[in-house]
């Protein structure tokens, strides 16, 4: 399939966006900050998790989207971010209180594992450490230190569960896992279901809390974290051995069929044309090359129009090198305007692709593209808004994905 320039009733259009990050909340506010001649930068936390810089979430007034304290207490920060962003998206789409519509809204969440409680883990380790058989002595300290609510805040599907409880989205509920690609697959499945008539309204997205020591441990096991200059962009980091800077973020999108949006008078930000994805081993250069060729072909067919490119690269060395090759490949056919949002907002794993699509949709809505975010961006092109923006998220370990967003008109 090539891009469908002709508008169709079964187009998947974005009618609501909830975006939060280190830059604050709101998709239009975030667009304004990033489209300014000198794009804004979020604050970086350099001390607390040293030697790893992380980008914390901007302060949120949680009670505006999660009014019940009891609900807030049942969640960890990751789930709160997601439920908050989902609420913003429903508000933005004007369906927050539409019980009938929420009852047939399909939820697809890209989720990671729930957050661990470092205090509880610390107490368990202390107790087990002194024992002759540490592994056999876990039961008692776990029994003493785990709390029932904590379990629920750690279940992957409970971000979706909490969105259903707090916002009453009940049409269906699916949680995809699998790091970066889960965000892409969540969007791809929603788009394909809308295009083929398997549903009219979807709420899709994810969230990430960068201030998580358990995730820093996970990344460190793969030697994936950046430990140097906290202002270094992904390209610079990749050249110096690579490294991820985790960034807190969340994005949820209300995606509807064009006919459904029109029938209820909803304004569309943009159209989500397609999501192209692939995966495979990364120890075979020829296979990687073939995958990138396929991905480029799936993205543009024979099209040679200029292409905006919102790059969600993580800074992980191999993945980021692959993406540079991919951009080179696309540059053969297109005037490319690469804007690496991963160099500004950091890396949000499952949330990376939804955040990038939100930024692309905002650019079409505001009819204004972004200035370069990273002095090392390859192929920065002009500041003109192209017909289409490709949004990338290459998995730091596996998987490559590109979404294509175009004007809603």
């Amino acid at each position, binding site marked *: 399939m090539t891009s469908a320039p002709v508008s169709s009733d079964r187009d998947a259009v974005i009618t609501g966006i909830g975006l939060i990050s280190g830059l604050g909340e709101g998709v239009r506010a975030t667009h304004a900050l990033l489209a300014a001649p000198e794009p804004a930068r979020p604050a970086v936390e350099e001390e607390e998790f040293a030697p790893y810089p992380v980008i914390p979430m901007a302060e949120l007034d949680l009670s505006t989207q999660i009014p019940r304290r009891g609900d807030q207490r049942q969640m960890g920060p990751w789930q709160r971010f997601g439920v908050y962003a989902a609420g913003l998206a429903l508000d933005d789409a004007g369906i927050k209180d539409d019980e009938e519509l929420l009852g047939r809204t399909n939820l697809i969440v890209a989720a990671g594992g*729930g957050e661990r409680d470092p205090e509880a883990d610390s107490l368990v380790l202390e107790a087990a450490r002194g024992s002759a058989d540490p592994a056999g002595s876990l039961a008692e300290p776990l029994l003493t230190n785990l709390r029932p609510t904590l379990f629920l805040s750690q279940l992957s*599907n409970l971000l979706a569960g909490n969105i259903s409880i707090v916002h009453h989205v*009940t049409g269906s*509920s699916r949680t995809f896992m699998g790091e970066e690609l889960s965000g892409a*697959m969540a969007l791809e499945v929603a788009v394909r279901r809308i295009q083929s008539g398997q549903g009219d309204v979807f709420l899709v997205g994810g969230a990430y809390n960068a201030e998580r020591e358990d995730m820093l441990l996970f990344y460190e096991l793969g030697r994936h974290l950046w430990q140097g200059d906290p202002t270094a962009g992904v390209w610079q980091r990749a050249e110096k051995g690579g490294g991820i800077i985790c960034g807190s973020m969340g994005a949820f999108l209300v995606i509807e069929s064009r006919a459904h949006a029109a029938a209820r008078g909803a304004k569309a930000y943009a159209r989500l044309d397609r999501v192209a994805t692939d995966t495979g081993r990364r120890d075979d250069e020829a296979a990687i090359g073939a995958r990138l060729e396929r991905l480029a072909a799936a993205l543009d067919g024979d099209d040679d129009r200029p292409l905006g490119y919102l790059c969600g690269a993580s800074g992980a060395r191999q993945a980021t090198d692959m993406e540079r090759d991919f951009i080179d490949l696309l540059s053969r056919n297109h005037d490319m305007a690469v804007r690496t949002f991963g160099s500004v907002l950091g890396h949000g794993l499952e949330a990376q692709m939804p955040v990038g699509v939100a930024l692309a949709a905002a650019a079409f809505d505001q009819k204004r593209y972004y200035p370069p975010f990273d002095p090392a961006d390859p192929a920065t092109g002009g500041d003109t808004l192209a017909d289409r923006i490709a949004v990338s998220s290459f998995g730091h370990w596996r998987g490559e994905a590109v979404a294509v967003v175009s004007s809603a008109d």
Partner: protein
Amino acid sequence: MTSSHRDHLGRPVIAVTGHGVVTSLGIGKDDNWKALTAGQSGIHAITRFATEGLGTRIAGTVDFLNGTPETAADLSYDMAELAAAEAVGEAGLPRGRFPGPLFMAVPPVEIEWPQRLAFDAAAAEGQTCYGRLISGAKAQNWPWPYDRFVFAGVAERTAETFGTQGVPISLSTACASGATAVQLGVEAIRRGDCEAALCIGTDGSINTESLIRFSLLSALSTKNDLPEEAAKPFSKNRDGFVMAEGAGALVLESLDHALARGADVLAILAGIGERADDFHRTRSKPDGSAVIGAIRNVLDDAGLGTDAIDYVNAHGTSTPENDKMEHLALDHVFGDELPKMAVSSNKSMIGHTLTAAGAVEAVFSIQTMRRGRIPPTINYAEPDPEIAMDVVPNKARDADVTSVMSNSFGFGGQNVCLIMTAP
């Protein structure tokens, strides 16, 4: 391509051409079926880890594969590979070149206590707990591959083994996950994205912490003295579910694709239905409306009336709440038809295989039709008078079954039902 076989809504008919299973009762359909219809329980005292002092010390762990699994990801992969190999082999498809995508329900994947303890012991520095763990993780190269702790890892390995197409989807909808994997496969074939799909649910995640977590929610049976009698779905004295491990795999194809290549059609996957609950994180809406909605949706999707279901393969966890709610919903939807229907719970024998349950029980649902025999609900000594159903008590029963509804309900308000019919 226009399909010649279309369902009542004009969509491609979906065939099941392969199915495979692993549970605590054994590897493969034959061993499992023999045990299941003999009313044999796979629940036993846990030996994988020390359980002294714990309220629940029993489970349906799968201990006969490779000794003690190093991580949940390892055992989950091993069982999934066995189940999928059985299914793909039965479908007559090449093992390394599966002609469609993979949809895979996997349990939570994370760094576990053996790793944390090792990192802690190797730590040279660090003020905080995780500071020490990170220091330990950096101290040396560890034998655990990174992919054991990546959520996509289990599905990526499975996709490589079977040569499935495109990016595999790893998913979790708690205890409905296995059924969600099937739903995704059905939807993908119906919309013409593919002609075949490999749908798997697997769960090998029983360890000290997961057991304690479910214990803290008061969800588990504590009848440790007679493990094989602990799971008592629909009984008056039921006191919680029993955690278990297993994997189930289904090969789905459009009926046209299956017939064109001369495959045996084992069953038709006739309907999928879902409804999310917004009431509570671990409890259903008291009026049962979400579960009722899921059942109504699956009947509508299959184009079947309330008189068309011969047998319900129940979620039947053996918790006081689930079994009451499931009966309430079945009674509400099926009314006068319910007394004529058989409703049994495989979980009375295999326990609750959690992430895998929907897929494992879909396999047993198809076996029920193909073998003309309904597996019983065992341990049914004290009927719950408020749950008046034919639960196929204690003994398997021969029956001509041509349609089965399989229910899966999970924490977080997840409710999914599948309907399978005889070809």
